[in-house]
């Protein structure tokens, strides 16, 4: 069941050398690639490999703490899932960590399976997120090909208006709308209206937010 997954890496950030080594040894034992860091700063300063991964992060770190690092990662757009480990975790701390999107919050000493499960699910999450980010990027590329008018037509189409209604709203003919709609379906590589609706949902806010800018 455990197979070598070459293109993934686990980042371990813990100031305690022996804990760092022990975790690294455990993860290696199940075939995971590990990179270790003694501080949050060291982690942030390193260029990370662009593969699915997961961060095993000690809450209590000298200087920038684990929670600080988590926040900093969000700010910097680093979307790697975080598994927190702590010597003794209190509830407010774990709540804060989970709210900020942590995969798991483990208290030392933890069961190895718990850590491995958390790490795997973290990697899985990252992989999925990466796929989604890739799909979204693709969709955005498609949207970018639409003209202003086509974008307007698309947003009215997915909101459920009929061609006639759209033509009336945009002050043009139903026929013209039909042509725009055909272009939208083609450029968006949508097979059906339902497909287009799903796409637009995925683009969601992005579409709306991109509305004023015309790049």
């Amino acid at each position, binding site marked *: 069941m455990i197979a070598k997954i070459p293109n993934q890496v686990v980042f371990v950030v813990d100031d305690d050398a022996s804990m760092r080594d022990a975790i690294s040894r*455990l993860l290696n034992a199940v075939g995971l690639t590990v990179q270790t860091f003694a501080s949050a700063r060291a982690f942030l300063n390193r260029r990370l490999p662009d593969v699915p991964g997961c961060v095993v992060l000690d809450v209590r770190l000298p200087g920038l703490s684990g929670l600080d690092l988590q926040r900093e990662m969000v700010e910097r757009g680093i979307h790697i899932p975080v598994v927190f480990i702590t010597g003794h975790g209190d509830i407010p701390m774990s709540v804060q960590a989970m709210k900020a999107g942590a995969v798991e919050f483990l208290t030392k000493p933890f069961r190895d399976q718990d850590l491995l499960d958390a790490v795997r699910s973290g990697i899985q999450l990252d992989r999925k997120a990466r796929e989604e980010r890739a799909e979204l990027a693709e969709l955005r590329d498609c949207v970018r090909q639409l003209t202003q008018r086509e974008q307007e037509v698309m947003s009215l189409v997915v909101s459920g208006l009929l061609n006639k209604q759209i033509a009336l709203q945009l002050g043009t003919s139903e026929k013209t709308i039909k042509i725009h709609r055909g272009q939208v379906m083609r450029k968006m590589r949508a097979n059906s209206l339902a497909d287009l609706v799903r796409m637009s949902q995925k683009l969601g806010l992005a579409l709306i937010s991109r509305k004023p800018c015309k790049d």
Partner: protein
Amino acid sequence: MDQIDDKSLELERLPHSKSKLDQKASKRAPDELEQQVNERTTQLSAINTQLINEIAERERAEIELTLVKDELAADLKTMLRLHELSTRLLKSTELQPLLEEILDATIELLNADFGNVQLCNPQSKALEIVAQRGFKPGFLDHFADASQESRLCDRAMSQRARVIIDDVETDPDFAPHRQIATSVGFRAVQATPLFSRNGEPLGILATHFHQPHHSSEHDLRFLDLYAHLAAEFIERKRAEERLRRNEIYLEEGQRLSHTASWAWNVSTGEVYWSTEMFRIFDLDPDIVKPGYPDVLQYVHGDDRVRVKKTFEDAVREKKEYELAYRIVWSNGTIRYIHNLAHPVFDGNGTLIEYVGTTIDTTERIQAEEAALKAHQQIDMILESISDNFFGLDKEGRFTYFNPHAANQMRALGRDPDALIGRVAWEEFPDMPNKENVLRALSERVVVVDELYYAPLEEWVENHMYPSNDGGLVTFQRYITERKRTEEELRKTQDELAHVTRVTTLGELTASIAHEVNQPLGAIVTNGQACLRLLSSSDLDIKEVREAVECMIADGIRASEVIKRIRRLLKKSKGGKSSYSINDNIREVLALTASELTRNRINVRTELADDLPCVIADRVQIQQVVLNLVLNSKEAMSAACWQPCELLISTEHAESAILVTITDTGVGIAPENRERIFAPFFTSKEEGLGLGLSISRTIIESHGGRLWSKPTQNGQGTTFKFTLPLGEDR
């Protein structure tokens, strides 16, 4: 002499006048007539010759008479001079002018050229010139240097007879002094010694002559008269001087000794008082005429009857008496006086008067009273002090025991009276502080010691002070009770220190748990990794070994943490050991590392290498460091906007180790800078407020100091403490 010579010359001229008459008669005789004439002439001549002879005789007699008359006149003049001088002697006060006058008279008498009067100094017995005539100043200087001339006078003094040198050139005795005589310019000299009536030598009356000179017996007799007169002058003057001086001395003596003298004529009641007597009674001698029984009015009312009775008894029994009583001055001042009197009888044994002395003893009595009082006071103090008080002389012999010390000696089975004069350490060979006693005795320094004296089963504290007589006074106090209290206090303090230590550790629980949990977590993880490695198809034995080694190391690490905590929780037994203060600091930092990390405190240490060891209670000092570190942490977590840094440094400062703990925290308000060391002062919500107070107690009980000041160049507080170095470093 010249006069006499003139007269003899006149006599020799007489034969010339007779031959003139002879020539006149011879011219008138031719023959018979001439013969007659011749006869007549012869007759006449014979008569004439006779007459002439008579005349000559008469003239000679007249001349002789004149001579005698002159001589008598000179004598009379001398006598008159003598009389005049002796009359003046009675009236004169000054010796010097009289002596000069006698010298002048003597020079005139002897027809001398110069002379001097020398007086015998009563102290040095040396002769000193007091009057002189005709000497050159140079001679006087010469004379002052124990001159040759004076030897002549010394001879006269020692021979007690006049020395006369008629001619210094021919007198063999004078040969050694001839040169002096030549230089002074005299050829003849006489020195007449002056003696008092009882033969005491007084001086010399000396006259000198330019030419050789021989004095006649006559002159010398008169010289003796002058010498007698001079001697009398001198003696009388000296007697007067002595009397006058004695009177002054007496009065001065009476005044100084407050001793007056008096006489009391018993039959007339007449009383004589010396000046001092008036002074003692504070009465004016010009106004008050003392008399008996009037004097009784000055006697203190309470003493009057007794005084009167003593006087009267003494008179009746004709006895000496001695009496002390009080008198009252007109201004009411009471004086104490002491009378001593003895009776004086006439030839028939009748009592005439009492003469006596009166002494004002007020000051003495007051001084005696004061001294007695002081003495009583000292005795009272020495006896009332609850300490044992010993006196030792410079040989270490007991000189004094106060009642408590004497009781102690008795408790030891010794007789305190028999110990006086005995050497302390010989009597008490088991004396534990003999060295201190000897040191106080020899170095003359105050020595204080504390010791347990087994025979008494007591702790004693000795204060040994060098005394003026070269010995020691020693105060000894039993301090067994104090010792016990101190011991209890120390125990209580230790207890309190322990409690605060436990409390402090309580504050650290989370951190300590973390410290222990960290290695445990690593062990568990490594163990799990091992299991996985072991069940893997391709067994990596090297990896497994490494994992196990790490587990062992972490196990040791966890137990170290536990040990550290146990050491800190252990109750201090007050035992001190020699160790490096840096160990304390490292251990505390190990305990608090995670706590400091959690509070984002950057720790920096500047621990001096090769520091000498301190001798201290390791646990207690660790508690102090821990306390200060946690205080700093507290102060810095309250100042979260600051970059937090804790700096701990150690250095060797003179005879101590200085530890400095600097933080960049909120700092301490100036008004609280000392208060923070007071018990129960706290700025924390959960603090006991004992940490710093106990820290200071601990440091001070080690002979060190703990203080705080604002951190230089910035916010925060710096705590510093010192620990003295062990003596055996």
